[in-house]
């Protein structure tokens, strides 16, 4: 497989010592009828080879938009990347011309989506959709590409790959479809895989299968994995580090063990507490009051302050809290992280 990789030209300016993926102060806006929606407001994180970074957050926190911005597949307009960098091995992808950018996709950075049924084109066979990658990026013949497609389906443990390659997405079960998605993402042997809620639409037993498969493939290939999810359970199982996003910002970043043991941001803390737990049965669940802010109208200061029990005056005023370094490899954007940690 590495021989195929050799066919892709190295990007100019590649720095082998730089992190695999580094996002700096990314800002994305959407121009809508209701005004400018600030979907991402300065997201920053990095990823090393072989590492699993979980981006955790609720819907509308900007995690999917961030992922799409990294991939360069945001629909512009309405979306506009107003600021920031997306560095892959030190190269700022945002500054690359579109043609080169396109070569990065699938070759270097690949992505899988939440709902495999709608993410796969319903009118083409999965074989076609897999083979397409080899034909477009590798210029393979139809037959060779088809062969590779079968191999890929085999690799993601789809039984009877040879015959199923002719089937259409709707003829697969949810789990199998997600396997196809994974096969598609891994086809060109990328170094970074972004998985956007890969198991949310699946049943728990299938979810376990898929997460297992992903972990295995990541290990095999020493890929960097960005796992976007809202499920604290899944994260606890697979992530090395966690970035928690709220209203377009990374509010806390920490190694997985630390964050579950002692969350450093009130939002992370509240999220953890709102999961139903055995020892709290019969009691009310701890809830985060109110709603996430509308992206067109993000509160001044810390965006979380209207829902935060620690909020005091400084939280309500700009500028937003900086990323306080609260421990080695840990940051939190909360003025009162000590109180949060200390409780």
């Amino acid at each position, binding site marked *: 497989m590495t021989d195929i990789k050799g066919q892709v030209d190295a990007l100019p300016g590649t720095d082998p010592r730089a992190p695999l993926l580094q996002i700096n102060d990314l800002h994305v806006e959407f121009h809508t009828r209701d005004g400018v929606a600030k979907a991402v407001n300065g997201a920053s994180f990095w990823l090393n080879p072989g590492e699993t970074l979980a981006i955790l957050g609720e819907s509308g926190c900007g995690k999917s938009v961030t992922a*799409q911005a990294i*991939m360069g*597949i945001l629909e512009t307009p309405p979306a506009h990347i107003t600021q920031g960098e997306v560095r892959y091995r030190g190269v700022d992808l945002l500054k690359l011309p579109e043609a080169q950018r*396109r*070569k*990065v*996709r*699938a*070759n270097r950075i*690949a*992505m899988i*989506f939440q*709902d495999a049924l*709608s*993410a*796969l*084109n*319903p*009118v*083409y*066979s999965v074989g076609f959709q897999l083979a*397409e*990658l080899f034909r*477009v*990026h590798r210029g393979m013949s139809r037959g060779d590409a088809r062969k590779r497609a079968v191999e890929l389906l085999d690799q993601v443990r789809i039984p009877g790959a040879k015959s199923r390659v002719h089937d*259409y997405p*709707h*003829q697969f079960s949810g789990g199998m479809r997600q396997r196809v*998605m994974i096969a*598609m993402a891994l086809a060109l042997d990328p170094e970074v895989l972004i998985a956007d809620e890969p198991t949310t639409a699946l049943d728990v037993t299938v979810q376990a299968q898929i997460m297992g498969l992903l972990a295995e493939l990541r290990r095999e290939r020493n890929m960097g994995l960005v796992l976007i999810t809202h499920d604290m359970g899944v994260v606890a199982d697979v992530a090395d580090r966690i970035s928690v996003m709220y209203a377009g910002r990374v509010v806390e970043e920490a190694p997985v063990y630390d964050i579950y043991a002692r969350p450093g941001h009130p939002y992370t803390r509240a999220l953890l507490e709102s999961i139903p737990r055995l020892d709290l049965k019969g009691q009310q669940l701890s809830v985060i009051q109110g709603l996430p802010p509308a992206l067109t109208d993000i509160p001044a200061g810390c965006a979380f302050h209207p829902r935060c029990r620690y909020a005091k005056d400084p939280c309500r005023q700009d500028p937003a809290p900086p990323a306080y370094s609260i421990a080695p490899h840990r940051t939190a954007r909360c003025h009162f992280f000590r109180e949060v940690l200390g409780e």
Partner: protein
Amino acid sequence: MFRYIVRRLLQMILTFFGATFVVFALMFANQDDPIQALAGEKPVSDNVRAVLTERYHLDESFPVQYWYYMKGLLTGDLGRSMAGRDIGEMLSGAWPVTLKLSALAIVVAALIAITAGVWSAIRRGGFFDNSTLLMTLLLLAVPIVVLAPVAQLVFAMELRWFPATTTARAGLYDLLLPAVVLACSVMATQLRVTRTSVVENLRADYVRTARAKGLTPRRVTWVHVLRNSLIPVITLIGVDLGMLMSGAIIVEEVFNIPGVGFNLARGIRAEDGPLVVGFVSVLVVVFLVVNLVVDLLYAALDPRIRYE
């Protein structure tokens, strides 16, 4: 699948009889004096009148006339027109050119509508989009009675790009001008539907996937989006094809094409019951077959659709 087709064919037979009945009834209601209609403004002698009345059962009641017609039809005899011509022959003379004309018109319309529709969907809100919107609305508002002679005047008589008239044996190029005129009548809606459908599909998740695969925008649009967007367009094209075949009356007259529309118009004006019913019945059958083909095409375009 097979059972589905058989069921559709059976329904087709029922529809066919329904259509003959409705049209026959309409023709009967319209029957004043077909014999005089045949003779134009010249007088018809009583004797001729009596003989023709008897020959075409004109003095019979509606059920009897219908019965005579159906009897003939079921034995494969489409009867004779009032002018004494064999209707079967007339049909086989008129159909090919009309089929050719409407197929060409549909191809022209679909090509333009789909290309422009996709384009304006991609650039929605842009200049191209807005100007096509205006153009299509204008096309919608200008009736074909205006469009056809004006096109003939400009492109045939002034510019001499196309022949002014064609015949039953016309080649594709000869038919191009009338086909374009005909296409204008259906292009507008097809374009709108294509545009809407493409816009919808552009938002679909699989487009995101395709782009994440590093495909060029062109490939994303014309390979991935287009096929998904074509389904509602195909339905429309099916309906349009039927309408074009019967609706070609004016175009056929202006460009002197002795096709179905022309024969229908003549038959209707001449109160020629058997002629009109014959043509309409075949029209309905063709229409239904086209619909069936369209439905099967669905399945071709969208593997999720299966017929039972």
